[in-house]
């Protein structure tokens, strides 16, 4: 079959580097397997242990919950507001530059942004403390990422002003595709701007908002790079997230089976949340 010959490189690559690893992850999640030792079948013990004995894992669930709720908001509501603002600008020239301005921060490498924020939160030379001192709130200053009670919040709310440029442009695209006559007639009917946004814009750009929402769920449940760079999960594991806990189990403690089980848990959670949000929001729309 000549067709399969052409597809072969694609299929072979995916087989070796994606399907086989995915299969291995699921397979190993039912084993206790420490690197260098033979693996033993333990059934669902890894999953049971996660929820009954592993306090760090439970802590990481709470943390990822906080982060996910915030990112879902940040990925949908804020882009909608900013997109409406850009949409309200009449001048085409401003609009053009605003779209560029939205994207520009998004192409700064993530690692640079994370390291800069680690620096902004720094206890001794950080910008945040300097700013608080300057406006007379010296008592609020602290070692933001060093305080176990505060660190997860500091981490979650890094990235001020929380404008996701890509999501904003996706939403803006939806707004621009709305038939102008509909908007005009709503204006003639005396609808206020807020009424128009609530009754017309939001239902009409719902496809875009939903895309942003699903992307946010997928990204935030498996989040771990930002945590690794900013706090390494500390102090005293207070900012641990499941993705990073998986990594530590695999590469620091060499518990490959347990790490795989965490991976399967993350995968299933993403799947369920995605399906659930697609279903809930489809009904709400109707």
């Amino acid at each position: 079959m000549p067709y399969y010959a052409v597809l072969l490189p694609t299929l072979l690559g995916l087989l070796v580097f994606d399907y086989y690893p995915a299969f291995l992850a699921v397979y190993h999640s039912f084993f206790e397997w420490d690197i260098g030792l033979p693996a033993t079948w333990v059934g669902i013990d890894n999953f049971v242990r996660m929820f009954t004995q592993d306090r760090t894992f439970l802590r990481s669930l709470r943390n990822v919950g906080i982060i996910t709720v915030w990112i879902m908001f940040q990925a949908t509501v804020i882009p909608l507001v900013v997109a409406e603002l850009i949409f309200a600008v009449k001048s085409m020239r401003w609009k053009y530059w605003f779209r560029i301005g939205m994207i520009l921060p998004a192409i700064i490498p993530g690692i640079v942004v994370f390291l800069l924020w680690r620096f902004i939160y720094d206890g001794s030379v950080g910008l945040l403390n300097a700013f608080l001192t300057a406006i007379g709130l010296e008592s609020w200053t602290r070692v933001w990422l060093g305080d176990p009670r505060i660190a997860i919040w500091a981490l979650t709310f890094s990235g001020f002003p929380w404008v996701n440029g890509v999501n904003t442009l996706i939403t803006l695209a939806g707004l621009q595709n709305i038939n102008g006559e509909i908007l005009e007639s709503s204006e003639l009917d005396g609808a206020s701007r807020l009424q128009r946004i609530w009754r017309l814009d939001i239902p009409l750009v719902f496809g875009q908002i939903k895309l942003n929402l699903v992307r946010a769920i997928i990204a935030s449940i498996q989040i771990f790079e930002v945590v690794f760079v900013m706090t390494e999960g500390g102090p005293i594991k207070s900012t641990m997230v499941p993705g990073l806990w998986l990594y530590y189990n695999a590469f620091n403690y060499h518990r490959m089976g347990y790490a795989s089980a965490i991976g399967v848990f993350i995968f299933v959670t993403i799947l369920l949340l995605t399906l659930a949000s697609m279903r809930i929001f489809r009904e709400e729309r109707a």
Partner: protein
Amino acid sequence: MSTVQAGGSALVEGRRWPRIVRYWVRHWPVSVILVLIVLMMVPMLLALFIAAKSRAQFDFNPWGLTFPLYYHQTFPAAWRVVSQSILNSVIVSTVSCIGVLFFGSLSAYVFARFDFLGKDTVFVIILSLLMIPAILTLVPRFVVVHKLGLFQTMWALLLPYIAAGQVMAVFLMRTFFVSIPSEYFESARIDGASEFRCFWNIALPLSKHIAGVVAILQVLGTWNDIFWPYLTIGTKKELFTIPVALLIFNDQLGQQIGTQMAGYIIASLPLVLLFAFTSRLFVEGLTAGGLKL
């Protein structure tokens, strides 16, 4: 922007406010967005300011712009540390991008133009990978790479990047190829063109835009990837990509903060340059309106 409106609100607001203030209040969406964009750029501006500082200047005034500027010291020092990793990142991003475009477009073409046994099944199986989170496969993929003897080689980055990037490429490009009228290909075939020439001389040139989007996604993804190179390159300094170099460099150069910031800026520049040439394509790709669920 109309002058009629300008006169009207000037009456309402009286003459107490200077003209410039009235302008920005009247065009408040513009003002708000401008403020937001400036705030979004604050971390980068900070990096730019701090990169100009000597150690003493930083201790004295860590946040403002201080003179004289020491860019001529911090940038060369940073460049010496990150230049190799910039080169590595450029190689990895470019080669994996070419690989994804080449194999991805060929496969997409086959899926778009031909019928064969099991075609739909294979296509769905490929697309199903979009649902599998990278974190699930991180550890076992590492094991596979290790067993294949690719650990601490550039292939450990290139091969998985090319494999994974093709999923999106096949999806986007197939959709595009399907939309090309089949008459184009038929008349070329009648003139004696081979199927490969149809692909190379007709389909590819027409798909420049979508190929551009695929390329940008691939470059952004590989350039920014932190963990996979961190794992697979390990301690082999001469193969560090830029995120790994920054991570390590950050811990080593903690004291020389100006140099550290200069390193951040150097790491961002290649993407900013790429964006300068492709911003139109990228912004249009995002705002064309096709993206929704």
